[in-house]
């Protein structure tokens, strides 16, 4: 119980740190939303508008600590403020619109990546010393060193632009009406394949390597030799005993990765015009839309922190040694 309390305290501390960074960073940026809004017209808008815009956005001239305090209070009420670039839409609405897309895209990609990567890791470890184990880890290691937005561009160019097999972006065709029809779901999938592949190719290697290395350690452990001596089949040994033990770090890694899903597909979303959180964060930064930027960053950080918290609890349950550290 002491361990749980300790971890919870850490959770609170890091949430507070995230909120504080989140509050102060954007505020140190020069300019205010009204000026930025006017400036984005690059001088073509009547500069008279500045006064009205400042009134609209309610530019605050209160001291920073007063703003910080009222920020904390409104956070407790679940109020993330009003977006400047989507004015007067509340930040929560903007996030709610984009979150499902990111969860669906990056979530699916992460699940597939973990399952496939882990499985390939087992294969690789099982076939250690053969050509499979020579090629597989190196190939995925190299593929995960490729800048994934560039891979996204490449896939888009080859399969979208030149060959025309897949759509050029978006979550679904704009002429379609979201529904449960086979046509629409198929349309969604067709749009998701390229971005999904991009994330997969670049993240597979990490899971593979980690599983392979765990496996190699365990395969060398005494109980494996013991099992072998007892005449258990190698296949059974690998899949039932070794893989089961080796998967533990990958499992906790998986729950961590789910936390990162929220921010994970940022560049992919931008390249494929996928309307998720990553894209929103990018435009919020571009528009210097503090409230939206803060809201998104907070959601991302919370997801990671919570996932981390849960991971630690699970891990501590599965591996008692952790609690003593």
């Amino acid at each position, binding site marked *: 119980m002491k361990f749980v309390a300790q971890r919870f305290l850490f959770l609170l*501390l890091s949430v507070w740190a995230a909120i504080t960074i989140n509050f102060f960073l954007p505020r140190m*940026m020069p300019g205010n939303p009204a000026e930025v809004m006017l400036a984005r017209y690059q001088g073509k808008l009547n500069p008279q508008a500045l006064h009205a815009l400042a009134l609209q956005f309610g530019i605050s001239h209160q001291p920073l600590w007063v703003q910080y305090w009222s920020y904390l209070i409104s956070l407790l009420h679940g109020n993330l403020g009003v977006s400047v670039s989507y004015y007067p839409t509340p930040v929560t609405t903007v996030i709610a619109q984009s979150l499902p897309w990111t969860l669906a895209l990056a979530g699916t990609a992460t699940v597939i990546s973990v399952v496939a990567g882990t499985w390939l890791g087992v294969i690789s470890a099982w076939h250690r010393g053969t050509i499979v184990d020579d090629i597989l880890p190196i190939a995925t290691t190299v593929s995960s060193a*490729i*800048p994934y937005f560039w891979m996204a561009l490449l896939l888009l160019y080859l399969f979208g632009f030149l060959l025309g097999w897949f759509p050029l972006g978006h979550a679904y065709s704009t002429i379609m009406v979201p529904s449960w029809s086979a046509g629409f779901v198929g349309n969604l999938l067709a749009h998701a394949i390229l971005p999904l592949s991009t994330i997969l190719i670049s993240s597979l290697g*990490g899971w593979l390597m980690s599983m392979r290395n765990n496996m190699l350690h365990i395969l060398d452990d005494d109980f494996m030799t013991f099992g072998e001596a007892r005449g258990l089949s190698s296949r059974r040994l690998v899949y039932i005993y070794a893989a089961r033990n080796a998967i533990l770090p990958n499992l906790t890694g998986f729950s961590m*990765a789910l936390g990162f899903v929220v921010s994970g597909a940022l560049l992919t979303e931008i390249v494929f015009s996928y309307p998720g959180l990553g894209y929103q964060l990018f435009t919020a930064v571009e528009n210097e839309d503090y409230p939206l930027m803060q809201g998104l960053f907070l959601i*991302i950080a919370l997801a990671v922190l919570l996932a981390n918290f849960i991971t630690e609890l699970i891990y501590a349950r599965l591996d008692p040694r952790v609690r003593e550290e």
Partner: protein
Amino acid sequence: MIRPVREKFPLSLRSLRKVDEVKRPSSIWSRMLGNTKFRWGLTIFMLFVLMAILAPVISPYSPTLTSFTPLDPPSLKHLLGTTANGQDVLSQVIWGTRISLGVGVGAGALSIVISIAIGLLAGYKGGLADKILTTVTNIVLVIPGLPLIIVVAAYVRATGPLTIALVIGLTGWAWGARVLRSQSLSLASRDYVTAAKLQGNSDAYIIRQEILPNMISLIVANFVYSVLSAILAEAALEFLGFGNVSDVSWGTMLYWANNGQALLSGAWWWFVPPGLAIAMVGASLALMNYGVDEIANPKLSVHRKRRANKRS
């Protein structure tokens, strides 16, 4: 840095296990060079370093010269074609090596230095210092990397490679610090360290003579990994336009290619080479990391012979 999934599981994670290195650093270096993967990685990487150094000699034109026919496909005059602004792509790739590698290595070095300082201090000193530093490390670790960098880069107004390197370096040290802390924690309790303490040696001496030499492969692995992350993060930031877009680097080349609709114009020669260059440097670093990992954890490098024995 870019890939949160891997951020948690860098290839060097396994190095956390039992590492009982010999105390002579020289043998570690020679073992590294003896590793095929490491050697290959290093060779490719050094080729790029050479390209950066020799840029003024081997580059056919100035990278900023805009006087050529725009969007010319590759030809003998322009081996990699030209950009929409009439610049020579090959010259840009060659010159771009300088900033791309410079920022990557600089940021990687910065973060490894911070990692070592914090990791060693926390692991060796223990106690309250350890508690505080570990908490700080954990907080930095779980705060999502790329979004933070983007927000920070926007704040510092991205005036050039130095700022980019600083931003990446200052946000990317946490994982290394965590790994190095665990290692120094374990080393600090070794008999020979205790012995050295009993002999009345100073902390600085013990760290220099007993702890650091035993962490070299771990430090190298983390450094290589940091450089890899930094190069990818740099490319991502510049691609998004958070760098100085007038600088010539691989990331800004991709930014201009994307902005100049290279895809739409069918100008593959504009966006393929810089990405390929990043991928090759990335691959070379990944190979080195892989190699160091195998040396630090001999179990990972499986010999064919042994395997053959097992099967029979």
